[in-house]
């Protein structure tokens, strides 16, 4: 370890004794293969800067060298690819991580992005030279001709060059968590305003959550060690306040970003739980998504500093002044040795003073304003800093790091000849804009403050309060006061007051693009998307009027930082070009998430085995052990087929079908929906809900039942058995069960509340085992001692309650295969035992178990429909050939009236028919379209489509069902199914392919 340490360049820009990092606790990571020794508490950005590394990436479009601009989550440039090596390989890699947010972690592998082959030499930086032709709207204007180039040349080339970072190729081995939380007051931001708000709100058992995106609470206090609050040094006050809050039961969430403010004070927080740890317990999630429902919310997110807009404002080493102050005071890092400052706001002056006091040379402070507070100029003079008022930067020099800046005196929009000043860092400040994103998520209205060039939060429909710099308040004392007020208002308490010294309060003047003595081609507004002031003016010249159009045309504000640094500058420039005021031009909408968020954080635990709700029957473990192949059906996973040895699906299904028709097959039908309908009006209710007559259904009898919507279209089907005069056992399709119950409840509660009938879902009460085939009764009989299940005593469509080997059982004589069939319903807890008994008995006579695929084939051979496969919400009973199921003499049933509309009886409706392909070996594709003639000119008239299609082992040929326009009158016609590789001819036939007389049912 120490060997490599010896060879590593020292952190030459670390100022010993400054900052809150611990350089006695070194943390090693690599940057593009080079080892960097950071101090505990560093971010990747602060550690790189401590080593004098400003160049950290290339820009998106022009591949210009870029450096760290900020010290927070608003960072547009310093996007890195990080791999948590100590925790594993490529799977724990994340692109586009902001170096300003990633804490230095032992073993972290950091790579720069958007460069090839290396950061210092990048092939695509040629784009920078071509920038004259790559301006706004470049894509729309250039890649138009020839047409044939769209797919083959332009798109692949653009796709290869585009994109931010490189996604990892391996699965993410981490897990992610999600939870709800409830509080009386949620405070977003733990800077001075947020801390004061939490102090005011805490106590009396109120539940308070204080969230901050940084690894350390304190916000701007961390960069203001010289201030005092209530007589205590700022950092002492901070430590004591945190203790007080913890003692008062405030939940403090660090590394937690409020990404979205949803309706009724539901705020989404993403907590980064382990990214700052070199190793972590396996059970800890990497990120946790908090859905916090708060009584009231205090937004104290602070303000974001704006860059100045001038030529070359994007060179590595040009950075926001406030960030430099944070690097100095929080991280003990000087961002340069010979620093120039260009500003339009007082705050940068205080940064300059702090740097000078720490031993850094500040060459000059250039301020765009003609006048500043005398105290500032006096303090500058005291420190020997040259002051240049009415001065603007017009250009910079340097490639991988700034070498100097041209400064020029301005008079209004004109400038005098510029002078060159050498520097190794240029700190800029265009003033501060409140972070109003979350406030905007609430549909909160913003008010334009022309004097300061800021949008301020105004009114919101949510119970939220804004405080501190985020509410437009500037200066420590005022921020504390406004936070305390907001917290007190939220909690109904009295606001505490604070005494502050060393407050760097101040003002500034809003600026758009600064005047220049040269054609300012590289005055960047949006660093991340490489949008310049010139691009925005071009967009206006080319006719864009609304900020929404300008945004889309230039892509300003559309990068992953959502224009945190650029929106106001872009708006000012657009407004000036349009000759309008900024509010007339408008501000684009801020949308969640506030900062880039991993998909995994949003997915939470919904991945792998818990990707979605998966329902399993009690027989599922048996099927799994038996080697079943499963398929999802609605939320259920069902055994699709049971391959033996090396059987393919087709082979297994053919065997299962043949065995069932010849001997018997056993099938887990437990997923069938079941509803117990009980009450004196049960029969009347079912008579109204279903098309079939139900009033006279005898006890112990079953009836096929068809449910329509009131629009007359098929919604569900099943079997209804009358268990007692006032009790019915209703089955539904597997997928339809919840919907059918909800529909029944709807009619019952709102249309016929006078009926005395109640509905209970019993889907899960019963395990349902179907036995079908000539030997079904032989298998079943030994288990039923207390009932006669002979063909005479227990005919098709009967049910009885009996004992199955001592287990209470509802036995149905029904069939979905056309064979002699029984359905054994037993309490689910006994389902596995009963299944094994039946399978054991079945094996003795040569029966098999079968899955859903065989079930599908067997029912299709009989022309039995599956709702949702043969029907699609536009199929009537007549279309499906089920007119026989309509109660002809009923006064009403759901859907009856709609069936009388003339359209429902039109001859050309799509009707269900069977299809035999000319070649019996051809299996049509389900969903394939059907046409009248193979040579019909395009576009062909589509008559319908194939709904079900299988190879039938029983018939030794393929069969299909289809809905075809006027199909019932087309028996014997040849129709055609055009496919990519040719046209398939098929003959229209009946849907009953097998045993049309139904003799086998009565076996």
């Amino acid at each position, binding site marked *: 370890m120490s060997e490599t340490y010896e060879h590593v360049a020292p952190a030459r820009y670390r100022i010993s004794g400054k900052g809150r990092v611990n350089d006695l606790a070194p943390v090693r990571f690599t940057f593009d293969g080079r080892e960097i020794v950071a101090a505990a508490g560093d971010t990747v950005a602060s550690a790189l800067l401590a080593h004098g590394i400003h160049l950290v990436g290339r820009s998106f479009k022009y591949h210009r060298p870029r450096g760290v601009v900020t010290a927070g989550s608003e960072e547009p440039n310093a996007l890195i690819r990080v791999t948590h090596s100590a925790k594993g390989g490529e799977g724990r890699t994340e692109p586009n991580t902001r170096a300003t947010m990633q804490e230095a972690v032992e073993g972290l592998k950091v790579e720069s992005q958007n460069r090839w082959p290396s950061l210092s030499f990048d092939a695509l930086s040629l784009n920078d030279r071509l920038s004259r032709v790559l301006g706004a709207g470049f894509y729309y204007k250039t890649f138009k001709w020839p047409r044939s180039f769209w797919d083959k040349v332009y798109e692949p080339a653009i796709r290869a060059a585009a994109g931010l970072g490189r996604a990892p190729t391996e699965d993410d081995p981490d897990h992610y968590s999600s939870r709800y939380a409830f509080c009386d007051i949620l405070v977003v931001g733990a800077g001075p305003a947020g801390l004061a708000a939490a102090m005011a709100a805490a106590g009396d058992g109120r539940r308070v959550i204080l969230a901050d995106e940084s690894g350390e609470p304190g916000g701007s206090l961390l960069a203001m060690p010289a201030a005092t609050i209530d007589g205590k040094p700022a950092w002492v006050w901070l430590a004591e306040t945190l203790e007080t809050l913890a003692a008062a039961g405030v939940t403090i969430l660090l590394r937690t970003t409020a990404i979205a403010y*949803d*309706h*009724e004070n*539901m705020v989404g927080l993403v907590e980064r739980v382990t990214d700052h740890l070199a190793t972590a317990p396996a059970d800890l999630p990497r990120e946790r998504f908090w*859905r916090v*429902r708060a009584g009231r919310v205090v937004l104290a997110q602070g303000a974001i500093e704006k860059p100045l807009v001038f030529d070359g404002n994007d060179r590595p080493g040009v950075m926001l002044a406030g960030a430099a102050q944070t690097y100095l005071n929080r991280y003990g890092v000087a961002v340069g040795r010979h620093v120039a400052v260009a500003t339009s706001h007082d705050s940068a002056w205080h940064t300059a003073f702090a740097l000078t006091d720490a031993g850094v040379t500040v060459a000059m402070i250039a301020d765009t304003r003609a006048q500043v507070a005398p105290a500032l100029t006096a303090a500058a003079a005291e420190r020997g800093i040259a002051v240049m008022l009415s001065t603007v930067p017009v250009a910079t020099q340097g490639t991988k790091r700034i070498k100097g800046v041209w400064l020029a005196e301005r008079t209004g929009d004109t400038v005098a000849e510029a002078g060159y000043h050498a520097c190794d860092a240029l700190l800029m400040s265009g003033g501060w804009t409140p972070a109003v994103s979350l406030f905007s998520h609430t*549909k909160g209205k913003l008010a334009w403050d022309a004097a300061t060039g800021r949008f301020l939060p105004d009114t919101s*429909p949510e119970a939220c309060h804004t405080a501190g710099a985020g509410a437009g308040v500037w200066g420590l004392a005022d921020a504390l006061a406004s936070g305390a007020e907001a917290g007190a208002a939220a909690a109904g308490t009295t606001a505490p007051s604070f005494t502050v010294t060393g407050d760097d309060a101040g003002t500034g003047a809003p600026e758009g693009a600064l005047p220049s003595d040269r054609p300012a081609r590289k005055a960047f507004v949006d660093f991340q998307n490489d949008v310049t002031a010139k691009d925005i003016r071009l967009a206006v010249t080319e006719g864009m009027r609304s900020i929404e159009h300008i945004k889309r045309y230039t892509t300003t504000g559309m990068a992953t930082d959502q224009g945190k640094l650029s929106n106001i500058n872009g708006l000012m420039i657009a407004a000036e070009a349009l000759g309008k005021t900024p509010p007339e031009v408008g501000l684009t909408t801020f949308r969640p998430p506030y900062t880039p968020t991993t998909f995994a954080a949003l997915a939470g635990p919904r991945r792998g085995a818990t990707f979605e709700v998966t329902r399993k029957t009690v027989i599922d473990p048996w099927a799994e052990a038996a080697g079943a192949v499963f398929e999802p059906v609605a939320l259920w996973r069902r055994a699709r087929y049971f391959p033996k040895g090396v059987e393919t699906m087709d082979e297994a299904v053919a065997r299962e079908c043949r065995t069932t028709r010849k001997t018997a097959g056993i099938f887990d039908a437990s997923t069938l929906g079941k509803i117990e309908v009980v009450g004196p009006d049960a029969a009347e209710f079912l008579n109204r809900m279903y098309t079939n007559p139900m009033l006279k259904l005898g006890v112990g009898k079953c009836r096929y039942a068809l449910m329509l919507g*009131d*629009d007359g279209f098929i919604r569900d089907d099943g079997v209804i058995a009358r268990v007692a005069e006032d009790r019915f056992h209703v089955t539904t399709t597997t997928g339809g069960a919840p919907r059918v119950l*909800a529909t029944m*409840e*709807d009619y019952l*509660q*709102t*249309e016929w*509340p006078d009926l005395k009938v109640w509905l209970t879902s019993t889907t899960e009460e019963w395990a349902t085992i179907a036995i079908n085939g000539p030997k079904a009764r032989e298998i079943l009989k030994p288990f039923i001692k207390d009932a006669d299940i002979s063909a005479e005593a227990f005919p098709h469509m009967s049910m009885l309650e009996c004992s199955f080997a001592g287990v209470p059982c509802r036995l149905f004589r029904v069939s979905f295969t056309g064979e002699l069939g029984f359905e054994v319903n037993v309490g689910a807890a006994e389902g596995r035992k009963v299944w094994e008994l039946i399978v054991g008995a079945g094996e003795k006579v040569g029966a098999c178990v079968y899955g859903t695929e065989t079930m599908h084939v067997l029912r299709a051979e009989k022309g039995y429909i599956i709702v949702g496969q043969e029907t699609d919400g536009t199929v009537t009973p007549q279309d499906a050939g089920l007119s026989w199921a309509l109660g002809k003499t009923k*006064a*009403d049933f759901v859907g*009856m*009236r*709609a069936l*009388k*509309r*003339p359209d429902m009886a039109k001859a050309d409706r799509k009707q269900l028919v069977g299809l035999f392909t000319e070649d019996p070996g051809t299996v049509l594709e389900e969903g394939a379209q059907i046409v009248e003639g193979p040579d019909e000119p395009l576009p062909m008239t589509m008559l319908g489509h194939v709904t079900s299609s299988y190879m039938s082992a029983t018939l030794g040929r393929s069969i299909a069902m289809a809905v075809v326009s006027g199909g019932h009158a087309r028996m014997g016609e040849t129709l055609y199914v055009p496919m990519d590789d040719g046209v398939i001819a098929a003959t229209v036939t009946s849907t009953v392919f097998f045993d049309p007389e139904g003799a086998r049912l009565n076996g």
Partner: protein
Amino acid sequence: MILIHCPYCDETLPEAEFTYAGEAHVVRPDPSVSDETWRDFLYIRSNPKGPHAERWRHAHGCGRYFNAIRDTVSDRVLTTYKAGESKPVLPGDVK
């Protein structure tokens, strides 16, 4: 996720417990009505901008269908009432 007051449970609860069930006060006509009337019953809805009388079900709760007035602009539920009760008059409603 909005909050909805269930008039049966008399509690204000998260939307996740509820399911939406279409416009309220759409009366199912007697089957003897004209095709046009039946069509209107099936398909014609008011789709207002602003307060909208609609049905919700406390599906993961008491299971009851009830009515709500929800402002389609603000996505706030202004009031809720039991099935069968008449639509309440809200401040600002035109009589």
